[in-house]
């Protein structure tokens, strides 16, 4: 349970505050509502490259990192398909350092050719390290365009290829900043041991002077329903074969999300779950297996699969996996098993709200989804899922025409 207050400034910046009386630390988190789904098709990877440039210093803070480090703080950022997130934790006496730095780079980012050139190289090395020079590193680079033919979720946050990043120009960087980095396209949260009024005043005193931009909203092309099953097979020099089955499902705020997440937990949350017990322990078809949902804002994916055991035919492993999903469509889950995954969800919520950074991040995330009350309401939604919901949703999601199979085979 996270206690919070919400306020929208006149320039459109949404502010969320959380008071934590047990800490001497403070946290800020900012979400800009721009991710890799907003990129041009020939400039994939741009949102993430831009995240790197946000650390290049700003009008009144030539270095972003130095003041934070002097203030005993720590900061980082990440970009995903839907949004870009910047976070800072520091001792509570230094909270204004964080607010000042974030406000200054929201309106006066220092963009220049030198930092662009260096960050392009850094991002290309990140591309190499995490995606190309690692076994299975390109799995998502191949999987995404296979299942998304129209929606920009078809490319990964890192981009389609290092060349897209290498070709980015300074003009494009300026245009991107002008369009997306504005108070009315952002959400900030602040957490620490302060009065609520004090927190709103501190934020407004730094951010209130920034003018809004009201950039046009981009209408994203939506993925049409899949009409036939499809299969992609690739071979690579890897030590073990993998097989995945993938299904389109609803978006983050749809009922699908909660039901599909419950189904994925029944299948693979904990060692007592169905897939681990049947696929790994009893049949020995997989050495590790997982089922999960991507959790994107727009309609996302349900994915099940893993590493196939040596000497097992990947097609046989796939059939066994599909049999487990078939059971979800035909056999009612009993109350005990459903309570188990709901209990586990309750623990996970509590474990996930231990420190102030987690809480600050959660607040921004649910505000971005458009319903901040969900930050404390997810457990009720999960507890409300019934066995009938599971059968109905499984039948629709695991339908043959909604099935994609991805074989990533050992050469």
């Amino acid at each position: 349970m996270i206690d919070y207050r919400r306020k929208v400034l006149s320039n459109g910046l949404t502010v969320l505050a959380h008071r934590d009386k047990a800490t001497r630390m403070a946290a800020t988190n900012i979400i800009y509502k721009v991710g890799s789904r907003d990129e041009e098709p020939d400039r994939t990877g741009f949102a993430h490259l831009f995240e790197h440039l946000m650390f290049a210093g700003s009008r009144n803070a030539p270095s972003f990192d130095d003041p934070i480090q002097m203030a005993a703080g720590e900061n980082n950022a990440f970009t995903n398909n839907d949004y870009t997130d910047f976070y800072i934790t520091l001792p509570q006496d230094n909270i204004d350092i964080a607010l000042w730095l974030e406000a200054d780079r929201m309106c006066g980012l220092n963009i220049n050719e030198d930092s662009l050139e260096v960050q392009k190289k850094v991002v290309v090395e990140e591309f190499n390290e995490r995606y190309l020079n690692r076994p299975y590193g390109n799995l998502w680079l191949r999987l995404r365009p296979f299942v998304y033919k129209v929606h920009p979720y078809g490319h990964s946050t890192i981009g389609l290829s290092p060349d897209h990043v290498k070709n980015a120009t300074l003009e494009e960087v300026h245009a991107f900043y002008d369009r997306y980095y504005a108070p009315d396209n952002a959400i900030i949260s602040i957490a620490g041991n302060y009065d609520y009024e004090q927190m709103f005043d501190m934020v407004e005193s730094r951010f209130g002077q920034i003018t809004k931009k009201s950039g046009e909203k981009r209408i994203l092309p939506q993925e049409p329903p899949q009409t036939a099953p499809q299969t992609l097979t690739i071979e690579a020099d890897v030590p073990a074969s993998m097989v995945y089955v993938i299904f389109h499902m609803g978006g983050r705020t749809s009922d699908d999300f909660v039901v599909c997440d419950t189904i994925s937990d029944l299948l693979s949350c904990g060692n007592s779950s169905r897939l681990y017990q049947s696929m790994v322990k009893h049949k020995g078809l997989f050495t590790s297996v997982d089922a999960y949902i991507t959790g994107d804002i727009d309609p996302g994916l349900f994915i099940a699969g893993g590493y196939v055991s040596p000497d097992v035919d990947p097609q046989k492993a796939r059939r066994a996996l599909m049999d487990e999903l078939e059971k979800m469509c035909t056999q009612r889950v009993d109350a005990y098993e459903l309570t188990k995954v709901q209990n586990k969800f309750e623990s996970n919520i509590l474990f996930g709200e231990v420190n102030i950074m987690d809480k600050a991040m959660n607040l921004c995330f649910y505000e971005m989804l458009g319903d901040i009350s969900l930050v404390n309401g997810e457990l009720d939604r999960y507890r409300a899922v019934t066995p009938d919901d599971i059968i109905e949703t499984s039948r629709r999601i695991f339908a043959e025409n909604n099935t994609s199979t991805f074989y990533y085979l050992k050469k």
Partner: protein
Amino acid sequence: MKYKPLDCPPSVNIPSSVDVIGFTTHHTPAGATVHCIKSSELDLVRISVVFRAGSRYQHHPFTASATVGMLAEGTASHTSEELSEMLDYYGIYYNTSIDRDYSIITLCCLNKFLDKTLDFLTEILSEPLFSEKELAVYASKRKQNLTVERTRVDVMATELFWKSIYGENHPYGKSSPETAYDTLTTDHLKRFFADHYNIENSFTVVSGNIEPGFVDRISAAIDTLPHGQKADCPIDKPCSVSYAKIDKPDALQSSLRMGRVLFDANHPDYVTMQVAVALLGGYFGSRLVRNLREDKGYTYGIVARTGCFEESGYLVIATQVSSQHTRASIDEIFSEIEQLRTYPVPDSELDMVKSVMIGEMMRVLDGPFGICDVSIENIQNNTDNLRIEQIVNTIKQTTPDDIMRVARQYLNRDDITVVIAG
């Protein structure tokens, strides 16, 4: 609303101290030690049981990790599946970890499920089965994981680094082929469990919202362990080589490790050396990050850190660089080390590092679980949480001369091993 102009930066408050929460120590009726750290923010309890049962004590490869890894894979009363069911139904977090010196069992639960959690703990400590069938599943899973892991250049470089600074037969340097899983037997595990999982060879740390009566109930679970001997075996001197390489001709990047054997955490220069290494590569504004990432763009990341085992310690510099810049990167790293040895560090830079290090400690200590991890480390190093204050004081008192002294003493080029994979 009166705005604060953005061209007017706030002043910085450098924290002068770190809040240290100590632990209280209890002795159970059977003589086991239970250390408690109470905090009441959340209705959660975490229990960690630590054994001197790390891989240095094993006679056959993978025995130590398999023993702790299989504790919950079947007991005299319940099958592995039933135990998993118990954990999952009550939402109990269960994890085991292993390093060269210690194994740790950690459980975390909602207060209302403490009794169920202790039933589980009692069972896995007193009657684990280590059956043939479960070992076969475990071994094939682990063997494949390891095979996959070892195709990564960073994993190759890490293993090669330990081997190169300690020696391939040294307990801190050794790594074994995946095929050693084929000859691992349940007898290895049963013997290892009997020799090392006992009251005298363990301690327990409990943190969270510890309600009245909890300590007695937790003690009763720990006391189901048998009595035995504290593990003790002398460790050989390290035997290092200066250079090692694994070729991977098609690799886009090389993984680099550079470093040396140093000393354990109780050495008088341990903290000063930590400060020197932090300056070199311990934070985002460090010299190595500025040079290799922010200036040259050779890498996505580089880090230098010190660490320790129970009877040794080390320096490691780790990065993954584009293959055509491997040589240049090594030269730059040596040149940054040379700078540290030759010129006094500017006060402003040293102040920043001190703030970063103290801030890091404040973050780790903010919350009951972080304090638990720090306490475990301190107990392993034969000290208590007052050690944290000493560390903070040493950091604050470090001078540019101290940095130059330790850099000259411990960072001789000839003493530094270079390892490359890729």
